């Protein structure tokens, strides 16, 4: 545990010292901000339409649900933006250690490969959490001007954390494959995009395949969380996805050592 924390602490320090992390954080905030702006505009129009309809039919106006109409699409967009940016956070984790030769320090210290792998995974997850907290500002604004429900928002953020964890575990794996950060970034990015495309494929395929595609795509599993449903089947899906990624990373690190590669 002490060793795990030491690795986690160093990785976090390194995040806050490196320009890449700030670029990722910056882009994330700008992109989510833009989407938030669009969504609010759209939400405005819908509310306006609902008012006009009410006047036309001389009824009390139908309230528009903030959670369903504003927060849910916002969280959805955050998940997808995260998918694009996450490789930027993870590309460094192992690749840089190998390039700098510091892997030799870690590998000859009394640390297990589990401690190293989990420490790195946790550090990226914590940084991602910081990114998510930054988007809390948007949700806060909605609380200020409207009255959304809190619980679905919390479940939505839990979902975001889980989706992000999946992409981090994948990025970690690709970082362990190479000592070149760019290769780690591009390959993780490509895989993430293909995962996203899998979700789309579901729309164009027959009923059997559609179900298959949507059940393997992390984005599809996110939907229930944004509605405020925490279903164990999704939890198990996400946790096993993450475990799979972390485990393969562990195996990669271990086998590189057996082979005597860096």
């Amino acid at each position: 545990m002490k060793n795990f924390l030491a690795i986690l602490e160093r990785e976090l320090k390194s995040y806050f010292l490196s320009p890449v992390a700030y670029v990722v954080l910056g882009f994330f905030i700008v992109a989510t901000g833009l989407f938030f702006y669009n969504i609010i505009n759209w939400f405005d129009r819908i509310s306006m339409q609902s008012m006009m309809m009410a006047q036309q039919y001389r009824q009390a106006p139908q309230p528009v649900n903030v959670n369903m109409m504003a927060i849910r699409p916002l969280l959805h967009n955050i998940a997808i933006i995260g998918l694009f940016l996450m490789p930027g956070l993870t590309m460094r984790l192992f690749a840089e250690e190998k390039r700098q030769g510091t892997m030799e320090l870690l590998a000859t210290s009394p640390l297990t490969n589990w401690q190293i792998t989990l420490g790195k995974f946790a550090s990226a997850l914590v940084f991602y959490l910081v990114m998510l907290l930054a988007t809390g500002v948007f949700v806060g604004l909605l609380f200020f001007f409207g009255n959304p429900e809190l619980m679905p928002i919390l479940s939505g953020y839990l979902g975001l954390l889980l989706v992000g964890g999946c992409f981090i575990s994948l990025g970690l794996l690709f970082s362990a494959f190479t000592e070149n950060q760019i290769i780690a970034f591009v390959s993780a990015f490509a895989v993430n995009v293909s995962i996203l495309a899998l979700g789309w494929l579901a729309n164009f395929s027959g009923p059997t395949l559609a179900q298959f595609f949507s059940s393997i795509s992390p984005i599809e599993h996110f939907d229930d969380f944004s509605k405020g449903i925490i279903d164990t089947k999704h939890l198990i899906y996400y946790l096993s996805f993450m475990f799979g990624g972390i485990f393969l990373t562990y195996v990669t690190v271990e086998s590189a050592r057996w082979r005597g590669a860096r």
Partner: protein
Amino acid sequence: MIQVQNLTRYYGRTPAIQEVSFEMEKGEILGFLGPNAAGKTTTMRILTCYMPATSGTAKVAGYDVFTQSMEVRKRIGYLPEQPPVYMDMSVKSYLSFVAKIKGVDGRDRKSRINEVMEKTAIADVQDRVIRKLSKGYKQRVGLAQALVHNPDVLVLDEPTIGLDPNQIKEVRGLIKSLAGNHTIILSTHILPEVEMTCDRAVIINRGRVVAQDTIANMTQRKRGAERLVVQVDGPNAPVRDKLSSVSGVKKVKRDDAADGINRYEIECEPGRDVRRELAQAVVQNGWGLLELRAKDFTLEEVFLNLTTEEGGVAA
């Protein structure tokens, strides 16, 4: 302190080292000598538990590097060829991280870090970011890192590579001062370094140990057939014949001549000291004997001899 037995390591089908064996006593400095790609780094990486051997065993402080790897790692400090430093950290926070993962107790950490910074003379740059340090400083930070948990064994892979002559001198001095408390293995392909810092040397070539002994023995052993240098003021041919006729002399070779003064290199039978007979022979003929001395093989010659001969020479 260290026992290495028949260590063999293959990369795929290529052997990197084969049947490497040596032993070290506590407090000794061992020079690990060999041309590039001889298997020095591979051996060191096995000793430091970076990777397992294909076969053979290695023990550090009584613990097996494979089965009791964690115990070994606690007792070993390793400076790889490229100092394993995080470029974006400050010297102090880097050392504090290393102290943590090496298991230095929280209470001792600060004093240990200060101690090694003092020893390696990097206290003046402790708050600087490592990226901005000169190569020599980076190397010393690497050395500090290897020392921070006060290990019994220090493994240094080419610690002076890429340093300027002053820095080399400093680092060598530092290494020498560490002997006694620490058992040190030092790999290098710079021969004077071994002569200057080490008690003993292991010469490795193409993955095999070709010689291991104390430096003194090594330079003498190769003398096998004693070699002498004689400088004579006299005509070449007769002098040469005369010298060759002295009993015990195997071979005479003229290697330099100027103004009627000839220099010869003489090889004689092992164990026989023919200096008196040679001197007599020269003087009796009325020539001038200007120089007569035994010639030591330098470590350099030993090394070249061992590493260039086909297959090497068994020690």
